[in-house]
């Protein structure tokens, strides 16, 4: 200590040489640090400026989405089937409430609810700021809305929020075709990036398939917020584009008649225009009410629907595959005659059964049909005759014609989950089971049993092809998409998938036989008879237990489940057909007595509304639309029909 104290003196030296170089070093260090800071600022403010300005905007701008009004759904005469109605939610802004406890207590009283306080606590726990509105009750009833409105003054901070809600005006009517909407699922969000949590999305049926048209485009507000998310001002508004409305080919009156005629039966019905392929009515039973989805379906309701052994959510008209039973004989007859293994004069003797191989194959009529030609065989639905046709034709030639008529393939209707059914062939069996085809199996197929399975839509198309002379249309149910002001945005012309090379003579024979099924002596389909219009049809009864290929139904144990399915396929009138129908009644027994009357009722309603020229409607035209547009092919100018090249 003493040594360096020695240097200290009261006299300050003028120069302090040791300090200078150290100050120089310090200066260099300072210059370096300031240079680094400057470079850093250059990097942030010049080089990465764009990136940061975007981040700053993202910080301060919140996009508040305004979902577009979903398009409406009309029937063919522009009567609304689905619309959107206001639904009211009760909303609390905690910050605006002066006495939270009191307000919540009052609100719980008005709404007869006791969980509002807990909902608010939950929102608080999630870290929602107090200026963020909390929805405490959704889909208020009218009484609740009125109650809140009249007590507005006692409920500061409570308001009603109007939300659009999908409304299916006729409840379960055509539910499987119209489908339903629901909140977008997390899985959908991943591949549809213009959807947000809480958005409505079509989940099933038309609502799902035409989602793109119906939904429109959400608008939005750009709102400036501060760091805690408080809204400060509106920066920009993008108006939403309302969804397109769609005009269906469904006729509400015919659909209602079909729904009524189906009664409490399980099954399905498809009615379409054989000249265009447009669906006039489509029923699947049991049905469901799509409104329960719009109300926010509860888990109990969902479980009930999905676990119901009757599968009410399945659209049986395109998803239900049934052995077509005797309706398949129309295909046998066409295939046999087209293939010339069967001539109009060919007769076989039916003693009530046939021995083939080492087994007897019964005819449904134990006493037999005697000697029958193809006409009588169709009218009387003789099994033995068509066993013979099948034996002579062979499975593969039969399958070739059946495929041409659309068996075993999806029709291409724009609905999800359509099933192709089954039209077996030797190749099919080899692929499916690795076994060769046994000729005896052809006998089952010939009477629409065994492996063969068809959807009601497929059978309706078969009837339409016979009716229109062999034109295979793509079945459609949307005629037009229109904008909010009613202007047509898109027209859906009929689409021809292919033309089936029918021999006109063959068709005439089949058609006249179908006419006698309904109107002739010994016909099995008299139930569908109309007084002034020639209905042509074919009954079918498909066995569920023994020979049914459908294992699911066969395994059911209840006696009702063993009963046969009843089929009826038909078109009318005989000349210039306007409608083709296929109907299946599950476990309805004989088709003529179960499905026949249903088809009768639908036909009757249809011709009441659209009487063919020169024929007076049988009943009084109640409920007929004011302007019934023509359903004839003339209604669609030839040029507007789309034909698909094969």
């Amino acid at each position: 200590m003493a040594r360096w104290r020695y240097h200290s003196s009261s006299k300050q030296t003028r120069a302090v040489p040791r300090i200078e170089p150290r100050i120089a070093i310090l200066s260099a260090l300072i210059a370096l640090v300031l240079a680094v800071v400057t470079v850093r600022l250059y990097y942030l403010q010049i080089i990465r400026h764009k990136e940061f300005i975007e981040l700053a905007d993202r910080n301060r701008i919140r996009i508040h989405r305004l979902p577009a009004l979903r398009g409406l759904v009309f029937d063919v005469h522009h009567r609304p089937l689905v619309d959107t109605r206001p639904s009211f939610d009760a909303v609390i802004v905690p910050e605006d409430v002066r006495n939270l406890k009191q307000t919540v207590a009052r609100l719980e009283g008005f709404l007869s609810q006791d969980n509002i306080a807990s909902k608010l606590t939950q929102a608080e726990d999630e870290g929602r700021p107090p200026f963020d509105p909390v929805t405490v009750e959704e889909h208020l009833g009218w009484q609740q809305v009125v109650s809140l409105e009249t007590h507005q003054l006692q409920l500061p901070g409570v308001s009603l929020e109007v939300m659009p809600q999908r409304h299916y005006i006729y409840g379960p009517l055509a539910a499987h075709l119209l489908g339903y909407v629901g909140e977008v699922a997390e899985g959908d969000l991943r591949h549809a990036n213009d959807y947000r949590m809480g958005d409505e999305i079509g989940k099933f049926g038309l609502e799902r398939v035409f989602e793109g048209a119906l939904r429109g485009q959400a608008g939005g507000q750009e709102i400036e917020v501060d760091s805690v998310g408080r809204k400060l001002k509106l920066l920009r508004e993008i108006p939403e584009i309302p969804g397109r409305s769609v005009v269906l080919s469904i006729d509400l009156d015919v659909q209602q008649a079909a729904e009524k005629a189906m009664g409490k039966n399980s099954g399905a019905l498809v009615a379409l225009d054989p000249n265009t392929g447009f669906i006039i009515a489509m029923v699947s039973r049991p049905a469901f009410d799509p409104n329960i989805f719009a109300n926010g379906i509860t888990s109990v309701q969902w479980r009930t629907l999905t676990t119901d052994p009757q599968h009410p959510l399945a659209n049986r008209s395109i998803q239900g595959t049934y052995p077509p039973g005797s309706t398949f004989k129309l295909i046998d007859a066409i295939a046999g005659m087209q293939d010339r293994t069967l001539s109009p004069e060919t007769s076989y003797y039916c003693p009530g059964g046939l021995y083939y191989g080492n087994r007897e194959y019964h005819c449904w009529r134990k006493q037999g049909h005697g000697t029958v030609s193809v006409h009588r065989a169709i009218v009387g639905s003789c099994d033995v005759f068509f066993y013979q046709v099948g034996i002579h034709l062979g499975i593969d030639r039969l399958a070739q014609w059946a495929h041409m008529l659309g068996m075993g393939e999806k029709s291409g209707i724009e609905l999800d989950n359509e099933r192709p059914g089954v039209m077996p062939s030797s190749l099919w069996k080899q692929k499916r089971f690795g076994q060769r085809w046994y000729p005896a199996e052809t006998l089952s197929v010939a009477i629409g049993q065994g492996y063969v399975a068809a959807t009601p839509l497929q059978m309706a198309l078969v009837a339409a092809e016979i009716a229109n002379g062999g034109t295979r249309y793509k079945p459609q149910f949307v005629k037009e998409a229109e904008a909010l002001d009613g202007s047509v945005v898109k027209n859906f012309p009929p689409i021809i998938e292919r033309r089936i090379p029918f021999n006109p003579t063959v068709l005439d024979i089949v058609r006249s036989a179908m006419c006698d099924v309904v109107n002739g002596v010994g016909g099995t389909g008299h139930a569908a008879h109309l007084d002034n219009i020639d209905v042509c049809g074919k009954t079918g009864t498909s066995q569920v237990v023994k020979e049914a290929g459908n294992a699911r139904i066969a395994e059911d144990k209840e006696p009702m489940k063993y009963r046969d399915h009843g089929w009826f396929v038909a078109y009318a009138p005989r000349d210039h057909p306007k409608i083709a129908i296929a109907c299946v009644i599950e476990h309805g027994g004989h088709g003529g007595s179960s499905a026949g009357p249903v088809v009768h009722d639908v036909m009757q309603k249809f011709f009441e509304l659209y009487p063919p020229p020169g024929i007076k409607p049988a009943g009084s035209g109640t409920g007929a639309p004011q302007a019934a547009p023509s359903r004839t092919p003339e209604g669609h100018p030839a040029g507007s029909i789309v034909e698909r090249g094969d």
Partner: protein
Amino acid sequence: MALDRRLVYHFDWTLFVMTLGLGGIGLLSVLSASWGGPRHALDPLVVRQLVWIGVGTTLMAAAAIFDYRALATYAYPLYVVTVGLLAAVMVAGHVTGGSRRWLNLGVLRLEPSEVAKIALVLVMVRYLREEPPRGGWSFRQMIIPGLLLGVPLGLVLKQPDLGTGIVLALVTATLIFVSGLNGRVLLVAMLAGALAAPAGWHYLKPYQKQRLVSFINPQSDPLGAGYHIIQSEIAIGAGGAWGKGFLKGTQARLNFLPEQTTDFIFAVFAEEFGFAGSILLIALYAGIIARGIWIARHARDRFGQLLAVGLTAIVFWQVAINVGMASGVLPVVGIPLPLVSYGGSSLIAMMAAMGVMISINMRRYLF
């Protein structure tokens, strides 16, 4: 004390104007950071800052007139008082944001750690003004400066105020180095410091550790500790070349920036005045620092030289750490941007320090 005409002649107007210029930038930035829109009343913060600039200017003038050599006499008493104040903070301090930093003195709230920076420089310079022996200060001779630093440093870290603690240590180190530390001791000290750094981790508070982690990877906790760094970088970067314009910075106005009137005031300024403004600000600091070094080199006595170095070092280290922190090159520690950040204690202390520098400069031709 009669004022010598030569003194007025040698008054350092450059330093004075640069100091007031930074004070003006600070006032604008505080106004901007507290701006609520044209219809809102002016935030009292702005008025207070203006008053403090007035008080600071007066004190700066007084300090300029006052002969700095007399400060050597007051160095130890001032040091003792400051340490006393720091100790008082421990007992009766006002808590903000988890730290005990303020003394409530009725009319004003004093932050003793701001005064401590100046007091420590004074006492350090008072001690180091003795010329070092041949070869420079030995390790043993540094025990007393170490203790002089250690007492206020310990008290400041206890608050906890890591930022001020770092500044105290860096300023002391700068003074010891410039005043002539032995080269070998310097090397050993640097090595020891490097080795001790990991051990120091142990003594950090969890939030301080979190800040360091966030500094290395801000995205590790973008809504928590990394938030400050990210939002500050966004504000600075969004300023671009020319800035968004006065009162138009959204990051500050919408409260995305933390501590926007104090520790992060640089980000407020940089967002509104861009790279051009930032460069101007850095240039003003560089000017003050360069002036300080010029004064140190031209001061008449070793006391004046070291005092100028010490006061300049306070400015430099605070600017470097504050801007480095705001722009994301240094971890977040709470340090005001000298002369710009809101806060009476810091502003007045810094302006007084500038007055002392002017005083040193004025008197280089005297005696």
